């Protein structure tokens, strides 16, 4: 009888929930804490920018800042109209896009629709290498090679040593890998059956690429371009080194231009006194820059989602 009860006890193992393991819960909490670091980073960025920006707007009116046409935060008489910095950013970004959009999308179509596997396997890493070159190197190249040798000697243009044209074109090449790689992903995601259908109807590669694959991947390609714009807007070193440091409210590409990013870097190069108006401008301009890129990234993410939803 006693033996039976022992056997019974042995035969009925606890198959229910195991005892709660405190260690497991602690580890889960710890991992979640690590994930929170990235959330805190965003909160930190917003808090840092907002705090000083609000103080800045205590000294300078919001409309004076956003609509003012003169930017002279250091030299008297002081003036805090951010438009010249915005125009400089738009000019350089525009030049970069003129280069990066056609070359990036062209490269993407070739890699996705024409290139053989070995070509793709060697060219893609080369483009990634272009993306990995530090932007200070692009800046050096724009200032010491592209402006004097290409723009002034080869193209015989009347440009200053520091000019927006050189910075914009070189920045365009920096942005190409971003656009090419995202656009290529979008086109590769278009199902083969669509291409086969087009070929079956007698279309050649040109017609298939431009009338079937390109429209089908359009939202991904738009996302690539928006991401490229956001990279160009946020790029600092090329502009700081090669585009000069003059807040100019014009679109003369052969002349020096400040952008939002290059202003921030240029003014914080010296040790800024906390509480000085120059210190506050760093945050106000930074806030504007952050908001612009935030809107672009959100747009880009939305477009990427759309093409994912269709084909996966």
């Amino acid at each position, binding site marked *: 009888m006693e033996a039976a009860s022992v056997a019974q006890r042995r035969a009925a193992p606890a198959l229910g929930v195991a005892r709660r393991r405190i260690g*497991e819960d602690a580890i*889960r909490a*710890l*991992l*979640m804490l*690590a*994930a*929170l670091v*990235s*959330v805190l*980073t*965003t909160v*930190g*960025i917003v808090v*840092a*920018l907002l705090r000083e920006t609000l103080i800045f707007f205590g000294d300078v009116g919001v409309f004076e800042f956003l609509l003012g046409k003169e930017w002279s935060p250091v030299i008297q008489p002081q003036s805090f109209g951010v438009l010249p910095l915005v125009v400089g950013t738009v000019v350089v970004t525009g030049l970069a896009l003129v280069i990066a959009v056609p*070359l*990036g999308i*062209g490269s993407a179509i*070739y890699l996705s629709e024409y290139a053989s596997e070995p070509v793709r396997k060697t060219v893609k890493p*080369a*483009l990634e*290498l*272009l993306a*990995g*070159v*530090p*932007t*200070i*190197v692009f*800046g*050096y*190249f724009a*200032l*010491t*090679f592209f402006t004097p040798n290409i723009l002034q000697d080869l193209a015989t243009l009347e440009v200053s040593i520091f000019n927006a044209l050189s910075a914009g074109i070189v920045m365009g*090449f920096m942005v*190409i890998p971003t656009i090419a790689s995202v656009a290529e992903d979008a086109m590769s995601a278009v199902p083969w059956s669509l291409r086969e259908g087009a070929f079956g109807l007698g279309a*050649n590669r*040109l017609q298939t690429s*431009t009338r079937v694959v390109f429209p089908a991947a359009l939202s991904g390609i738009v996302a690539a371009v928006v991401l490229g714009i*956001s990279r160009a807007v*946020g790029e*600092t*070193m090329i502009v700081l*080194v090669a585009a000069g440091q003059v807040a100019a409210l014009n679109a003369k590409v052969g002349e020096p231009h400040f952008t939002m*990013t290059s202003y*921030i*870097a240029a003014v*914080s*190069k010296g*040790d800024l006194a906390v509480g000085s108006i120059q210190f506050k401008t760093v945050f106000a301009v*930074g806030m504007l*820059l*952050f908001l612009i*890129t*935030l809107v672009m*990234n959100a747009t*880009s*993410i939305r477009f990427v989602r759309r093409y994912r939803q269709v084909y996966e």
Partner: protein
Amino acid sequence: MSAIGSAPRAARLRAGAFRGVLLACLGLSVLMLVVILVDIVLDGMDLISLNFLTNYASTFNQDESGIRAALLGTIWLMGVVAVFIVPVGVATAVYLEEYADSTRWFNRMIEVNIQNLAAVPSIVYGILGLAFLVRGPFGQGNVVLAGGLTLGLLVLPVVIIAGREAIRAVPSSIREGSMALGATQWQTIRRQVLPAAIPGIATGVILALSRAIGETAPLIVVGAATFVAFDPGLFSSFTALPIQIFDWIGRPPNENVDFPALAATAILVLMILLLAMNTVAIWLRNRYEQKW
């Protein structure tokens, strides 16, 4: 005569021209990379020497000038970045892939947030570092630790995204097998999932470091010094390779020192470091990549 003839000449010409244009796009992009690399090598080759690596920067004597402080500063910074991003990045990746229920708003917010952070301009991270790591109640001043943490926050998304991909690539049959043998979730992750994902994670960490090593703008904002004539430590002020390069680019050459040439030489050293890191990353990926 067969109904299916060859395409008309004009159409074939157009198709050929289109192909040619596409090839030119790609060719021009790659050509630019080649021109940049050749330009750097030609400009920087003459001054490179062992002295250049071991001497402090000098404004008087070109042949005595070097990148000792900048190189040490960069090594210190990369050390801080690595110590910060490896645990935090891997832990975040593990949480998001193995624990988080992606239908809950909280976890979705973390994911969208990381996507957004990856595209915030680097100079904005510099402002973050300036406000909280350099100045403010917990501020350390313009020291290596503040600079390194700023760069770490900047490249953290790279590690998280690469880590998640590596963890996702481990098939669920491995996890199920481990669980069926009675392992707890954490035991499964630590003994099965993470070891299998290490090559992918390591590749991501190296890519993050190679992004961080060339970042200049955030370091300018957190106040990296341009002239340092001592070996930096964790709590000392510092300079770094890209900062030294930036400083040299900005100085006009005089009769004693050709500063742009010094800049090119320092760029050459930076590019060689980058190339070495990328080579290790590619080697790791090819050597240890597992096909399940």
